[in-house]
Structures are given as C-alpha cells and as structure tokens.
C-alpha cells in the first residue's frame, strides 16, 4: 500500500510539556541459553502534542520500545518517567492503572471483543477506570460519533468493515482522554484506501491536540508524523523531523 497524504499542506503544531522521558533504557531477554539485547541504551523525550513515528526493521527493538512506551513492559535498566512518574519501578497493577488512564492503544489486528457491540468495546477502559454507567455510555457514544461511527454504535465487530473496526479501536483508545495514543501498525491490516482514511483520522486527532506515537515499518505511514525515530539493533539511529 502507498498512502499518498497531502504532505505539503501540513503544519507542525507547537509542542507542550514533557510527557515521556526515557534515559539509557536497556532490555534483555533470555531465550534459552542466549541473551538477546532488544534495547541497548535508548534515550528519548516525547512532549505533549507530538506526532511521532517509530521505524525500524524487524529485530531492531521497535516492538520492545513500543511495549516499553505503552507501559506493558518495564526496562531492564535505565530511567523511564511518564508525566513525571517513575514507571521503571512499577508493579503490574500500577502499570495497569497508567495504561488505563494515560495510554490509548490501537492495534494492528484491532483487538476488539467479538461478542460486544461497538459501544461496549469503547466503554471497556471506562469500566476498568471505574466510571459510572450513565457517564460511561455517554462518553463512549460521543467518542464513537467523533470518529464518524455515530450510526454504528450497536454493531458488533463482525458487522463492521475493517476501517470501521479500526475506528472503533481508535475511539476506544480516545475515550479515557489519554496522554498518548500508541498505534502499532494501525494500517497493517487495512487496504490502502481505508489505510488513508485512518491516517486522515490520525491527522485530525493531531490537529485537535492529541499526542500520537505510531509504530510502523512503512515510510508512507511514517511520513504523516512530524518526527521520525529510526531504530537499528536496539539503538536509535536517527531522530528528527519527518520532512
């Protein structure tokens, strides 16, 4: 696929305060006898209202960094602060709390609950966040309207197209008003036309002031971001503007 977005017309919005600060982060995996150095010392700062793409070939540590940023995993060594909180030393349930409140995930395979309708899927983070039912419904419904699915609220995932499913997933990521939205190959399972639509939605979210981190191996997707980080062999190879 080769999404051709209107690259020339875009603007870089002024960035806000620091959201993520990573310093000298390493990650080791034990694979049987072998120790794999997934990250060998990565330092990185991400500010509010950035649109960041993380690129790199497979095995570059791209996924590991994404898991780290998403608080799904903790570093073996190094410092990680999220909104000033030390994440590196957190236990499981504390990380779950951060993920629930601060991070919105968009997965390549959508990861919707198949037997729940769009509204239910979008409500899920609010349930785990302890939001009362009436407020939950209202917020989930409004977020679905915001992503253009106002007429699909009670459809189950199998009654929706791929693009619509990913929109539900985006709504689910947005509903808790997180500090960052973390998207892992968000167009990887979509045809090029739908992919462009999702990327346009991302552009729109960025314009509205959201912070976006997109992990991808496709240049065309990365070009939508304002900043691109390229990883190689567990190290940052380059970090700079997308154009």
């Amino acid at each position: 696929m080769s999404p051709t977005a209107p690259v020339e017309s875009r603007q870089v919005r002024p960035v806000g305060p620091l959201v993520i600060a990573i310093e000298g982060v390493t990650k080791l995996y034990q694979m049987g006898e072998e120790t794999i150095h997934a990250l060998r010392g990565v330092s990185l700062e991400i500010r509010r209202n950035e649109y960041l793409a993380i690129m790199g070939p497979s095995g570059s540590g791209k996924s590991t960094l994404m898991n780290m940023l998403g608080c799904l995993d903790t570093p073996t060594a190094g410092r990680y602060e999220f909104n000033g909180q030390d994440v590196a030393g957190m236990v499981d349930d504390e990380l779950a709390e951060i993920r629930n409140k601060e991070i919105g995930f968009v997965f390549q395979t959508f990861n919707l609950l198949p037997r729940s309708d769009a509204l239910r899927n979008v409500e899920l983070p609010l349930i785990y966040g302890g939001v009362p039912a009436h407020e939950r419904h209202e917020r989930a419904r409004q977020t679905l309207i915001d992503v253009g699915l106002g007429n699909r609220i009670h459809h189950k995932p199998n009654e929706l197209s791929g693009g619509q499913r990913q929109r539900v997933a985006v709504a689910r990521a947005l509903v808790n008003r997180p500090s960052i939205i973390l998207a892992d190959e968000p167009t990887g399972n979509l045809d090029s036309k739908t992919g462009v639509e999702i990327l346009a939605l991302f552009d729109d979210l960025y314009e509205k002031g959201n912070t976006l981190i997109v992990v991808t191996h496709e240049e065309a997707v990365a070009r939508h971001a304002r900043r691109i980080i390229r990883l190689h062999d567990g190290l940052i190879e380059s970090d700079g503007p997308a154009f």
Partner: protein
Amino acid sequence: MTRIIYEFTESIRIAMAQIRANKMRSALTALGVIIGIVAVTLMGTAISGINVGFDRSLAMLGEDVLYVNKWPWTPVDDWWNYANRPFQRPEDAVKLNRIIAALPDSQLEFAVFSAGRMGSIKSAGNSVSGVYTMGTGAAYGRILAADFAEGRLFNETEDESGRQVVVLGYDVAQALFPGRSALGATVSIQGQPFQVVGVLARQGSFLGLFSFDNQMVMPMGAYRKYFGIRDDNTDIRVKVKDKTRLDEAREELTGLMRRVRGQYPGTRDSFSVNGGALFKEKLDPIKRGIALAGLFVTGLSLFVGAIGIMNITFVSVRERTKEIGTRKALGARRFTILLQFLIEAVSICVLGGVVGLGLTYALFEAVKSTMPSFPVAFSVILVLVSMGVSVLTGILSGFVPAWGASRLDPVVALRYE
C-alpha cells in the same frame, strides 16, 4: 469500591456471554456438576432422613426411661455369658420401688414391670393375629412416649383388681373398628372378653423393624392370668428424674438391681441396663462413619465435575489469551482478570447446581409418592448448602486457571495467536 462493583457486573456479563456463546460446552461441563450435586444432595438427605427416622424410633422408647433386660440391646460376642441370666420378675420391680422410695436423692423415679408376647384379638367377626400383647402396671402411663388417639390407660384400681381392660395400638383399632371409635367396645383376647379403654395415636415403626401401632396393652393381673409369666419377654422400665444425667441414673440402677438380686461384689451383673439414649450413643459413631463414607463416595462425583470445570476454564483462558492481553492493555488489573474467570467457573457451577437441585426436587417428589414413610425433606438449608457447595466448587476449580490468566504477561498475551 464502585470500581469493584463495575468490574464484578462486567465479569458476570462476560461470563453469561461466554456461556451463551459456548452452549454445548457449558452444558456438558455443567452436567458433571449436576450429577455431583444430585448425588451429594440425595446422599445428604438420605443420611439426615435415616437420622430423623432413627431419632423418631428411639424417642418411642422414651428419652428418660431405662430398661432392665436379660440381654443388652447391642450385639455381644460372648453370648454364653448372657444366656443363663434370669428373666426379670414382677417382684424385682416391687423391690426396686421400695428401695427407690427410701432414697430421697435417687436419680430414679419408679420402676414398672412389663411382659410381652404375640397374641391375637377378635371383635365381631374381625380378627387380628400377631399383635404384640403387653402386660404392665398403671404406672406405665407415666413413661409411655405415645399420645392417646382416644381414651386413656387403665388406672391403678383397674390394674390391682385385675379388670379385663385393654388399650389398642392404632393399627389394631383401625383393623377391628374401621372408621369408628373402639372406645367402650368389647373385644376377645385368648377367648376372654376385654373392654377397650383407650386407643394410642399412630406412632409408626421402630427402625422399620416392627410397628408400635401393632400392639395392645393390658393390666399385669389380666395378662398373668391368661398368658402367664414363664420364660417370657420381660423387662423392668425405670423412669429417670433428669434425662441429662442418664449415666448417673444408669450407675445407680445397676447398683440397686444388684442389691435386688443379692449379687456379691465382683460377680458379673445378671442383667443389662438399656435405654434409647444409651443405644444412640453406641450407634452414633457407626452412623457417622457410614455418613462420612457415603458423602465421600458421592463427593467423588462432584470432584469429577470440578475437574471438568477446571479443564474448561483452562481451555477458556487459553482460547482468550489475546483477549486477556487486550484487556490488560486497556487497564484491567490482575484481580479483574482473576475475577472474570472465577465468575465464569462459578456461573457454570451455579447453573449445574440449580439444575441439580431441580432434579433432586423431582426425585424427592417421586420418593414421597412411592414411599410416604421415608422421611425426605426439601429444605431451605438443602438449597443453601448445595448452592454454597456449587459456588465453592466453582471457586476451587476455577482458581488455578484464573490465577494463571491474571499473571499473564500482557506483552506475551497480546502476541499470542
């Protein structure tokens, strides 16, 4: 707090959706629990039914009455030590009463002699044979555990003057005088006319062995005259003042009987002191053993059901590993995931429990209509206990897989295909 409630309701919703989505699988798994619950509740009710029947039977003997017999009521191995004992004589009871009357601190109130054998009774063309015929004193009225359907026991005067009066057991009265009162009627026993002065209320059978309703009671004088006291089935019944001090009373009675018999110290008793409560004490450990063994065996079937639940929960966790990863990424904590799968396991168990209880209820109704005398009862306690057992089974069998699910690494779980 509210968060836990949301997570709880969410877990229940997920569990219901999961059961609906896998109807066949859930039904088959629940079947294991259904069989287990039916087996355990049936066994539990059978045991309590037997206990109730047993206690009811023992109550017929009187809770505050001791019996002096030739033989103990529990089986003995050294029968030769008992075979040559004398039978109880009416004089023994007379002597006992004299001693008791002279002892103000005695735990015993009075003794009454009785003898019994099988006899037959006739009235206006109707006749009943094989009726347990008992001769005793008027004092028997004070230890009789049964109520009167009508009339009364013979009194002291009738007893001492050897009047030919009789009290009938319920079934005997029904057989001779179906649908009408037996009171005042004249019946023929051993070819002699007896007047009916009372009818006992229905008592039922003793341990299912013989019926207390198939008896008649007459004054000792009349009994002696027409049946005689040879090597009869005789006993002395002694009323105890305080039924909570039965052991003391038994000690005392043993001592007094030895005095009556003129037994030298160091010789074996020439009689046995029996009683319902004493009998119960001896049988209770045996009953408990049988109950435990029964519950253990039926419990095994519930255990098999529990293994089924555990297995299906493992499968469910495995199938939904990716979903667990997604939920964790969205902020589900360990406890949330644990709760989700525990509730799923418990739901299947409760489903099985409800159906199992329904089946048990149907079986009870069937038993009741075919064997009305068998004491089965479908009680609130039974419902609560079996629901409790169901929930417990679900928690115990679901815990290990649910725990495993809650500890899954979200990174690994998300990658799982």
